[in-house]
């Protein structure tokens, strides 16, 4: 029923499907974190996952690159099912960049070394080449001058930008962001969102778990609202934020003080 409507409003839907989630189920012991999630991510799209804490949006993101294994349904990445064997899974992970809420920079390495680590260890690039790429990526996130600094000497916003550069250095096909600004001071959130906005403008495919409704509204091409392990509504931001079709979405947005 909604199929025709969706494609009409979905501006980037002609791009190839990069990620397809079909009936994804994930359990932790007796708790079911995802109760059957269907979602498509097209090339060049920014898909924002919003919803209350514990509704399953981070879990879905972590299932995407196999940090968590699903208990039912399918996840396809670039036309292939997420592989079970470690080696193929690793190759697939290398094509998906991930940014964590708590940055997870390697504290024993400088910003430069953090960014060069993936190309060096995973892509077996020469040190000179990996360093050139690290320099370029740090410049891209506006932190060329912080290359020799250790993470402990950087602000939260700077650390998260280095983490983005670290993921970009692998030249991924898609970037996964897991609440990238939730651990940041309000005044540094903007610098991280700006970097993400630039990436989106360059056509990077992005899946973003976020509580930043303004970002989802302005940058997102498609928004999925999660509640208790399922998507209660998905659509373009204009629908979700201006004319939500479900009570649950209206409820969630009004709790955030969102007034359209």
């Amino acid at each position, binding site marked *: 029923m909604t199929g025709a409507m969706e494609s009409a409003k979905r501006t980037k839907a002609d791009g190839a499907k990069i990620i397809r989630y079909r009936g994804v189920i994930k359990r932790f012991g007796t708790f079911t974190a995802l109760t059957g999630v269907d979602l498509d991510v097209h090339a060049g799209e920014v898909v924002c996952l919003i919803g209350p804490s514990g509704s399953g949006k981070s879990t879905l993101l972590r299932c995407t*690159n196999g*940090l968590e294994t699903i208990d039912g349904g399918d996840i396809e990445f670039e036309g292939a099912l997420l592989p079970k064997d*470690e080696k193929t899974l*690793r*190759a697939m*992970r*290398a094509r*998906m*960049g*991930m940014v*964590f809420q*708590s940055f*997870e*920079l*390697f*504290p*024993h390495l400088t910003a430069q070394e953090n960014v060069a*680590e*993936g190309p060096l*260890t*995973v892509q077996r690039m020469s040190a000179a080449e990996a360093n050139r790429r690290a320099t370029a990526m740090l410049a891209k996130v506006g932190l060329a001058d912080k290359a020799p600094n*250790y*993470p*402990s000497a950087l602000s939260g916003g700077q650390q998260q930008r280095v983490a983005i550069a*670290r*993921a970009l250095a*692998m030249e991924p096909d898609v970037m996964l962001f897991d609440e990238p600004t939730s651990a940041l001071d309000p005044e540094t959130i903007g610098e991280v969102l700006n970097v993400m906005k630039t990436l989106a403008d360059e056509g990077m495919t992005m899946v973003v778990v976020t509580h930043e409704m303004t970002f989802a509204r302005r940058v997102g091409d498609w928004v999925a609202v999660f509640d208790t392990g399922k998507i209660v509504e998905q659509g373009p931001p204009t629908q979700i934020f201006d004319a939500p079709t479900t009570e649950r979405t209206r409820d969630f947005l009004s709790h955030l003080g969102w007034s359209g």
Partner: protein
Amino acid sequence: MTFDWSVVWQHRAELVSATGTTILLTVATMLIAVPCGMVVAALRLYAWAPVRAAATVYVELFRNVPLILVVFWAFYVLPIWSGLGLSPLATGLAALALNVTAYNAETFRAGLNSIRRGQVEAAMALGMSRTQALRRVIIPQALRRVLPVLANTWVSLFKDTSLVSVIAVTELAYVAMQIRAQSFRVLEMLTAMAAIYWLLGYPQAKLVDWIQRRYAVTE
């Protein structure tokens, strides 16, 4: 009561050589116990369950038995088991290594466990294998964290080597006690022994303090 400090000077050659043995025992024990401790820690964390259990039994046994008992045990039991007539020095070294390896294994295990899960996830999200994550991300951080603990173990070990005097290893404590027995210069020899241990031990303790400051983990 009169003191005769000349006894110390008369026996200087033996004391110097015995001090050498004490240092040798400390260095040799650590050279064995650091790599072996790493292996035992890795077995306790990542090995097949029965191997893991065996490693746990070893650690909990040797960590909770007095070192002097291990020294005696090595002296009486090792020759029977191995069929070799081990020298007192080799026997003492074996006892110390068994004990300190168990301690170091616990130190390394705690160090590896102290690195939060997100670090492995970040490494794996880049496409690293578990082994690569361990080698490039976890072990380098864990080593920094445990270095001060290892340095402390070193300082304790330096003094604990005196326990192998009970099986006639000619290290500092044994030799000083021998000289005392022959010369009846009890206070002089005990004082000399204390002075030598202190003069060597104090700089080591200061070095530990420096290492703890230098390698403090900042995140």
